């Protein structure tokens, strides 16, 4: 085992250091020129390390299929967010320290993907969260940013405390903090009531990251208050960290145990609450915020299934989710005037003002609905199959009915873009960034048409948890 097996983490840590140096340097130069490229190299590093396996730090840090798969996604997501941010030439707040905090959070999430011990997990979670606490209020003089920051910190702190409290219960009941040790014991309420309560509380910390009902109240306000680029990050990458941990934890509870039933119920409520609330939103970022609450609910289908198919479906769906959500946020960032929050009406006549952006938005919206042939459809199909196979018929029915509800607000985005009329001037957006956004849309379509290679990768990763 060589140091190269940790290449993705090391590369990102190197980036953090480079950004730190840039932020304290006297020459106030923009890092936007080289950062997307450097982050792109991080994706290559993650790709290179995809097959690495091994254990570090007394087996608390493990490189397996799941961790390497998610590291690739995190590296990719980080590269896309820096790409989106680099496209914003007007953003005065996009300083090196902004990107440093972003990179630090992504680094924490990468560590989270490999942690297989509860205390290490907790530390990595905090590492990824603290930089976000600093990032969210960073938005010029906007009062809403301060409100968003406070909300995120207060909710985050409360849920973290809850998770820590849960952790203490688990340790007290099971006398181990290693996931492998915990997986070997029973998780039925009758056998270990304290541990089950502890696990539920510990999971809450990750539900918060995932914005699952009822831990979602921060989500729309924070998206609305944060800078567009920050919102694009917060809405996507930290969710990957949450999913990877939830996949690991859900792997040791069997279907129809109490904890799994809680997951299923939370999923159902989350889908419904998120979709219903999104129906009435006008602010695009708030709309996407509530939609992400609904999507967190969909992911629960895979986790509640508790099978290898369910885990791989959840992993695949989170990939689809970050792709389509980043594509949507890409458009949000592109159409925002003076870093303001765009509303549905700002999309009016987009087909005329920026046909390519309208197309990217349509692909993203239809994928978020789950319409074929997009990644969102493939992901949803895998989730539904996995949940149905484990007998969660009611959950599948709730999920498809929710899809029907969600059509309205996703479609209204496309409707405004394609049928609305506006006198606003054409959006000038550099061709290079258009190609970048187009590539995101193409990936969304490609993953819907040919999901096999990445699904197999996710299945391999999940197969190791469920041999």
């Amino acid at each position: 085992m060589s140091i190269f097996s940790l290449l993705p983490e090391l590369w990102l840590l190197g980036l953090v250091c480079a950004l730190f140096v840039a932020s304290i340097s006297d020459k106030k130069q923009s890092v936007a020129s080289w950062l997307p490229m450097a982050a792109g190299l991080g994706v290559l590093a993650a790709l290179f390390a995809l097959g690495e396996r091994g254990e570090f730090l007394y087996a608390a840090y493990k490189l397996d299929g799941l961790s390497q798969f998610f590291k690739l996604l995190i590296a990719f997501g980080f590269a896309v967010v820096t790409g989106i941010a680099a496209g914003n030439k007007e953003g005065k707040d996009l300083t090196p320290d902004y990107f440093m905090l972003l990179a630090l959070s992504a680094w924490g999430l990468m560590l989270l993907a490999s942690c297989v011990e509860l205390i290490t997990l907790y530390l990595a979670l905090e590492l990824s969260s603290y930089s976000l606490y600093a990032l969210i209020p960073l938005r010029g003089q906007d009062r809403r940013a301060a409100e968003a920051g406070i909300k995120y910190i207060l909710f985050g702190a409360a849920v973290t405390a809850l998770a820590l409290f849960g952790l203490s219960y688990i340790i007290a009941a099971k006398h181990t903090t290693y996931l492998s040790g915990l997986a070997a014991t029973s998780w039925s309420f009758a056998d270990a009531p304290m541990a089950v309560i502890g696990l539920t509380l510990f999971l809450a910390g990750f539900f918060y990251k995932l914005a699952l009902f009822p831990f979602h109240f921060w989500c729309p306000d924070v998206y609305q208050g944060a800078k567009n680029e920050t919102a694009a990050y917060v809405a996507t990458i930290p969710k990957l960290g949450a999913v990877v941990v939830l996949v690991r934890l859900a792997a040791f509870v069997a279907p129809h145990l109490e904890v799994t039933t809680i997951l299923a119920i939370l999923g159902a409520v989350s889908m419904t609450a998120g979709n219903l609330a999104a129906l009435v939103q006008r602010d695009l970022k708030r709309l996407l915020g509530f939609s992400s609450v609904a999507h967190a609910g969909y992911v629960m289908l895979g986790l509640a299934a508790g099978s290898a198919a369910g885990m791989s479906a959840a992993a695949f769906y989170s990939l689809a989710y970050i792709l389509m959500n980043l594509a949507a946020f890409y458009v949000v960032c592109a159409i925002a005037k003076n870093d303001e929050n765009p509303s549905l009406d700002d999309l009016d006549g987009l087909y005329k003002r920026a046909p390519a952006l309208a197309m990217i938005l349509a692909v993203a919206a239809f994928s978020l609905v789950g319409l074929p042939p997009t990644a969102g459809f493939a992901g949803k199909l895998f989730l539904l199959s996995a949940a149905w196979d484990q007998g969660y018929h009611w959950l599948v029915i709730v999920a498809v009915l929710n899809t029907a509800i969600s059509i309205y607000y996703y479609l209204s985005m496309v409707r405004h873009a394609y049928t609305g009329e506006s006198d606003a001037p054409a959006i000038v957006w550099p061709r290079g960034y258009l190609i970048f956004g187009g590539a995101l849309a193409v990936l969304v379509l490609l993953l819907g048409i040919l999901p096999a290679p990445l699904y197999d990768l996710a299945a391999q990763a999940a197969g190791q948890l469920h041999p």
Partner: protein
Amino acid sequence: MMTQNGFPVVTALIVVPLVAAVALLFMRRDWTVRMTTLAVGILECLLSLPLLGYVPDGPAFQFVEKADWLPALGMTYHLGVDGLSLYMILLTALMLPLCVLGSWTYIAKRVTEFHVCLLLMTASCIGVFAALDFVLFYVFWEAMLVPMYLLIAVWGGPRRRYASIKFFLYTLAGSTLLLAAIVAFRQVGGTFSIPELMEKSYAFKFQFWAFLAMALAFAIKVPMFPFHTWLPAAHVEAPAAGSVLLAAILLKMGTYGFLRFCLPLTPAAAETFAPLLIAVSIAGIIYGGCIALGQTDIKKLIAYSSVGHMGFVTLGIFLFSVKGVSGAILQMLNHGITTGGLFMMIGLLYERSHSREIADNQGLGKFMPAFMFLFGVFSLSSLAFPGTNSFIGEVLVLIGAFQGNPWVGFAAVPGAMLAAAYMLRLLQRVTWGEPAAYKPSWGDLGLREWVTLAPLGILVFYIGLAPALCIKTIEPSITRVLSAMEAKNTAMGLHKDMSMAERFNLAAPLAVAEAVDAVSKEHP
């Protein structure tokens, strides 16, 4: 990829328009875009010619193409053609060049996007009719919604926003439950392959719910009364080519879904629900006819007549007799030709008079004799005049109905009379009514318009006078479906007089066989 005939005909029919759609995005001049799409349309027609080599008595599915798609979940890229889908695919291919020609002057804005939508529609519609993998079917089924939505929303009439959203919400909401049914079939049947699923039997309880989930999606698409409210709005607001595609192809997907899935996969449930669906079909026939009778807008009149015509199709399907189902399939084809032709003509009329009101388009026989001749042909076909295509289809359905239950036949007959009433009234007023003020734009049909309408006009008489050719191709597939259905129901022990509770106790034949095996092993 495994193909039966060497050249992958069906894949080519799907891929060519897709590739052309991407190529159009790089074209600048409107004329080039139109010519390219027309060329692709003609190429589609030529490419579909090998399908005429379909052997009625041959294997159930021909021109089969199969390749792995997602082996981990058993999803395959599996296409094939049988008697149920053959004419639908041919009709779809034929409609593309006709729609391009019909919209040549009608569509003036965003020409490239319009033609991209036409091409995407064609590709996904052919995919729907040819898919033999349940997921692949669903992919094409849903993918078709987006271009159709845009056709209505962007190039439609004044209330296009309302109509397009209603269309999208109705049809997509209906088909979400279809997705749940697909997932359920995989779990119970162990595969997504439609031919393999057809060979298996399912317990009644499962069939009951699966049928309901699928039937809702299909009934909305047909549309069956009372799920039809999206249709008149969509038809009236859509541009001419959109209405043609809606009428000719899109509505057929619903009835095709009933034939492809509900009858073979859930035969016992289909038989249980048949009386209800027959009643709803008859209600649709009468309702559509009555409402059409009261219309003053020509396009609305034809739209409501579609509700009635599609009622005949669903009636034919749920009669479960070879005559009824043959009539239904023939009617699917006929409705596509006739109503497609009528919508095309209304588009041409609107270009001339800028109104779709009957009152504004009266007495046109004087100004546009050739136009009125063709309008007369399609109108007579629509009211099922003997010698035209719809006559054969409607008569077959009615014979099937009378054979099954004379009361059903009697109940459907007024529908045919209503059709005669509203179509003749329309024809009389538009051709011979008190002429509206003469408009210089009222020139007769030009060459392009003749070329657009003539193929459909020829088909009206070709099928009307020599229907045996079509029926011969369709019948073996129908017989296959119906006899399999009957065999499964008999093996299950389903009787017509059974109560619902008794039906719920019916086990799948496969399960019965396994139980018998288990008992014989225990007591040798």
